[in-house]
């Protein structure tokens, strides 16, 4: 895009073109939604950075209570991680279907993605319930507070992603693949893949490093 601008400027200078007061041609995105949404994601990234920093600082403050090493179940986390990973490629399939202008296929793959996300959320809630049940609630120690804040915030994001996804399914059903809906599907794809990126940090930093002696 900047190339186009460059040539336009050069042309204006070199040849004695008539004076222009308006920029001709369309060098800018027609709307800034994608950039704006990206900046939102970056600000979200900062929230997670703070939560990761908190977890890093309080990572060994067990206050005599249970530790992550004793209670984390890596098998459960492995299943959860694979659910989220598979959901990112099913979202990719939805994007490909949208590109091919197939509204049914888009909705189908979006629904599959949503179900995988719901499965992830279900397992996470089961894990939280289990942890609280065995006496490792958010009030137990600084470590568990930081753990629930970080992992819970990620889970909340997934929850709102699913709410958005269901809303989008209704909008797609009603209006089809209009420009607005394409934009929404793409923004949700960025949101969804961004959550996957955060989860990479969570399973590495919290769970895998948490069970190491």
């Amino acid at each position, binding site marked *: 895009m900047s190339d186009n601008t460059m040539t336009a400027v050069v042309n204006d200078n070199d040849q004695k073109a008539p004076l222009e007061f308006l920029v001709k041609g369309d060098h800018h995105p027609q709307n800034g939604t994608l950039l704006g949404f990206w900046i939102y994601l970056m600000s979200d990234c*900062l929230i997670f950075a703070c939560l990761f920093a908190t977890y890093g600082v309080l990572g060994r403050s067990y206050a005599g209570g249970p530790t992550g090493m004793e209670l984390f179940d890596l098998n459960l986390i492995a299943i959860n991680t694979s659910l989220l990973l598979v959901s990112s490629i099913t979202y990719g399939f939805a994007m490909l279907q949208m590109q091919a202008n197939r509204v049914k296929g888009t909705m189908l793959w979006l629904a599959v993605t949503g179900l995988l996300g719901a499965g992830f959320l279900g397992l996470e809630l089961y894990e939280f319930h289990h942890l609280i049940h065995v006496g490792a609630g958010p009030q137990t120690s600084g470590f568990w507070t930081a753990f629930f804040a970080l992992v819970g915030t990620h889970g909340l994001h997934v929850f709102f992603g699913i709410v958005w996804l269901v809303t989008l399914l209704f909008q797609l059903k009603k209006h089809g693949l209009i420009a607005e809906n394409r*934009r929404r599907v793409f923004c949700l794809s*960025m949101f969804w893949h961004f959550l996957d990126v955060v989860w990479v940090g969570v399973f590495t930093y919290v769970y895998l490093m948490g069970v190491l002696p």
Partner: protein
Amino acid sequence: MSEHTHEHDHHDDDIPHVSLKEYATGFVLAVILTVIPFWLVMGNVFESSATTVMVILAFALVQIVVHMVYFLHMNFHSEGGWNMLALIFTLILVFITLAGSLWVMYNLNVNMMPGMME
């Protein structure tokens, strides 16, 4: 130029073109980069925890880049480079937040509350 504007009529947005190859490559890489760290930790492959931590952190960093490139379609010219600029700015802030917090709090623990350290 006219071709450019014409395309806009059809797609009226700047949604990047995606391809099956891109998603498949990203997915395969992501699976490999996820399975290896889990195997390293669950199979107790390395004797020392420090080695394992270094290796799995390196895998996580690579996997984050893979997700960025293949799933989030990051490159240097999307949205005229502003995406990348925002990302770099954010990464600097993330680094300051993480490294600064850990460093400062570690020093506080060591120097001011010796009883807190096991």
